[in-house]
């Protein structure tokens, strides 16, 4: 190989790149129990995405000062309920936080 290759921290770089490999899609094991879990994973991933987007939107408006106190109160209550409901659903289906993500190939991960 006739390249210039210079690295300040070979092991550190390898460690970070390994983390990327972790999110590659593995072969799907399509047994009946797994199909149900995979479907739940997909639905909850999308719900989680929407929940996070709503929260982010709320934060942007709060940061820019365009929310009244009443609105902050109401959004807070809604978000608290959504968050706890999502935690509940994850428990029911036995899913971890890291499992609720989608690899979009060249676009990286969904979240």
């Amino acid at each position, binding site marked *: *190989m006739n390249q210039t*290759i210079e*690295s300040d921290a*070979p092991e550190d770089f390898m460690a970070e790149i390994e983390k990327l*490999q*972790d999110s590659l899609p*593995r*072969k799907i094991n399509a047994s009946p129990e797994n199909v149900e879990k995979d479907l739940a994973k997909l639905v909850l991933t999308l719900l989680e995405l929407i929940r996070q987007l709503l929260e982010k939107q709320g934060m942007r408006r709060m940061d820019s000062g365009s929310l009244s106190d009443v609105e902050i109160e109401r959004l807070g209550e809604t978000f608290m309920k959504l968050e706890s409901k999502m935690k509940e659903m994850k428990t029911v289906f036995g899913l971890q936080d890291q499992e609720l993500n989608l690899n979009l190939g060249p676009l990286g991960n969904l979240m």
Partner: protein
Amino acid sequence: MDDDFIKRRDVTLLEILDRVLDKGVVISGDIVISVADVDLVYLGLRVLLSSVETMEKLRIGTIEPGNSPLKE
């Protein structure tokens, strides 16, 4: 083997694998790859670089279709 030599070789290998495993011309149709080979491609950098033990197993052929260490 000199420590520096190993490090340099590992970095070279990392950069090569980072490119050849899923970049370049990727053709989907007409490719004939067996189950074992698909496993090898999916194993990716983690197994290929960080596990000397697994490398040895790959070398002597004790990893076969069906018993890849990353199968769930």
